[in-house]
């Protein structure tokens, strides 16, 4: 009976509003406030200048075979420590400019370099004074910067933690980690065991800030620069960037989100603009179903009622979001427990998921893949 009631309500709502959308989803339930990716880098960028036809940088090398690249200029020759001439290759790749990386440059595949500070001199044709970048990438170095800013999605006033994990090989005392945030300035990331850092000397450097924005939505960029030494006394540098998204809410939940089994009611406070209300239902970590409604508010508040999709019968939790369609910010994100009407069969769920993701190519595509594709074995069978 309950099932029929839910079906009827879902049907009724689907006829009512064109923007109501419901259906099954697969995969994991979303992480509240977003899951931030971890940026991993084994490179650093030394900013230099062309002066009298030369670019000179003095940088720490922590591995034997670094890839050193001068971006922005073609060098006729490259010397290390004024003595050793390094074999170099020049390139002109306009394709790189599509990603705002200079298309012109000089590449040095260095071999068997002794770790420590070295001076590299690039002799270039250009005589005019201009800023350039020298990138040093050390794929075989044990020092990797793993950088993350959490949470990914915050509201003004929330705390954001920036973590730079350099591993246990680095000296916490002799390593300096700075984070530069637009409109905020610099903060030092510390590995001292004091909040927000968790464990002293574990190689994870942490710092925090309170999110702020004057705009309704503002992606904030963070640049982290590291200079330090390993526990063996080898100097190194690393750099990386990360970001987080700050929303200055334009509406809020006027009261509380209510769930009565068949529907979820979201009382939005008076506001102006276009909003998307979406509910993702799941059982524990498994996402089951999705429902969304887009609404326009013209200064008034509104109680938004979202019906429960049929596919969410076995759900025991839901994530409710109010998204701002004008700014792309996340106004509200809450998790609630919902009544479970059916047993959740994990085996059946995994079977369904497998079926959903089974790659069934049309015959023409299958033949084309055989003829034009390379290494088709990596991702399993081609149908």
């Amino acid at each position, binding site marked *: 009976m309950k099932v029929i009631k839910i079906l009827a309500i879902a049907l009724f709502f689907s006829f009512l509003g064109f923007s109501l959308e419901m259906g099954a989803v697969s995969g994991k339930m979303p992480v509240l406030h977003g899951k931030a990716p971890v940026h991993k880098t084994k490179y650093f960028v030394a900013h230099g200048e062309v002066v009298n036809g030369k670019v000179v940088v003095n940088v720490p090398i922590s591995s034997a075979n670094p890839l050193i690249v001068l971006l922005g200029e073609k060098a006729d020759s490259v010397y290390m420590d004024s003595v050793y001439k390094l074999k170099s290759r020049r390139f002109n790749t306009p394709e790189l400019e599509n990603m705002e990386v200079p298309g012109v440059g000089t590449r040095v595949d260095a071999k068997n370099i002794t770790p420590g500070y070295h001076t590299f001199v690039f002799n270039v044709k250009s005589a005019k004074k201009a800023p350039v970048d020298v990138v040093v990438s050390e794929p075989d170095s044990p020092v990797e910067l793993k950088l993350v800013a959490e949470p990914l999605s915050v509201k003004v006033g929330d705390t954001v933690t920036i973590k730079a994990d350099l591993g246990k090989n680095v000296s916490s005392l002799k390593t300096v980690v700075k984070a530069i945030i637009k409109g905020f300035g610099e903060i030092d990331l510390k590995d001292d065991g004091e909040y927000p850092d968790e464990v002293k000397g574990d190689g994870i450097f942490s710092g925090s800030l309170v999110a702020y924005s004057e705009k309704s939505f503002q992606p904030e960029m963070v640049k982290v620069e590291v200079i330090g030494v390993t526990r063996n006394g080898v100097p190194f540098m690393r750099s990386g960037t990360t970001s987080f998204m700050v929303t200055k809410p334009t509406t809020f939940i006027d009261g509380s989100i209510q769930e009565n089994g068949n529907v979820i009611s979201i009382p939005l406070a008076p506001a102006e603009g276009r909003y998307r209300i979406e509910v993702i239902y799941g059982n524990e970590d498994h996402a089951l179903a999705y429902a969304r409604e887009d609404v326009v508010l013209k200064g008034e508040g509104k109680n938004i009622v979202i019906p429960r999709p049929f596919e969410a019968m076995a759900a025991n939790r839901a994530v409710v979001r109010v998204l701002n369609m004008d700014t*792309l910010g996340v106004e509200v994100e809450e998790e609630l427990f919902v009544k479970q009407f059916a047993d959740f069969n994990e085996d059946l769920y995994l079977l369904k998921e497998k079926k959903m993701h089974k790659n069934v190519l049309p015959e023409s595509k299958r033949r084309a893949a055989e003829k034009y*594709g*390379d290494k088709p074995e990596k991702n399993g069978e081609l149908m």
Partner: protein
Amino acid sequence: MRLKRFLFTLIVFSLFVFNIQAKTGIAFVHGKGDSDLANYSVAWDYWTTDMLRTASKNYSIPLCVCHYNGEDYMWVAASQVAGQLYNFIVNNGIDDLVIETHSFGGVVIRWIFSNPDWDSRYPTIINATRWVNAIAAPQKGSEAADFAGNLEGSWLTGWIVDLVNENTNSTHNCRTDWMAYYNQYWLKGTSGRPALPKPWYWISGYGLWNDYWTKFHYQDIGLATLSGVVGMPGEDDGMVSEYSAEAVGYQWFRTKANHHHNRRNDYKKIGEALATDF
């Protein structure tokens, strides 16, 4: 009774006739780049004549080469692309559209297919589409875009010294953290999100040097260098990692063609592969 049967047969027959008269079209949506990609001829050159001619079977399939400002965010670019696709569909009576995208173009089209109520033209485009072939799309972002934020004259310098050289909107859009945000809140097709309304097939690239050693092709060394410097996870085509290109839709095939070659019909016959859809 006979009349009813006759009418029923007539309706079924007319539906059948209507169906076999489905008009096929092919549309190309380019990736990010300069603002001059808003020009039709620049967008055409992006793909190359050989690619467009081959994929459209010597232009026998009506062809739409979309062109948008390559520096814009996906939703701004999507608006420009939607106008061109909508007019193409309506003016030519297209109801069987195959959309070919390269790089960021695959993200732009995913915006349209993820947000059908955003723009009144989107449903027409979605309904007319048979499927999308996305070549090397940075669906989870690109580590190359993250790297671009480290460079002199980019965003950091721009903010501190108030220069104008900060990264463009589309480069920000291609960052892995920005795409993580959009994938979790605004786009469909990734794990835990609703499915896209039409079939979606990916082609990912994993080659780097390609014909550098045989033809000394100047584009290949730069892409191989960028891949090496950035240290992209897994395999990549010099600009986009395969894990990212493969994050949405079903596998069509993997290609050794790098990011320069996989929108062309030269090093590998990608255009010929696309033409097999018709």
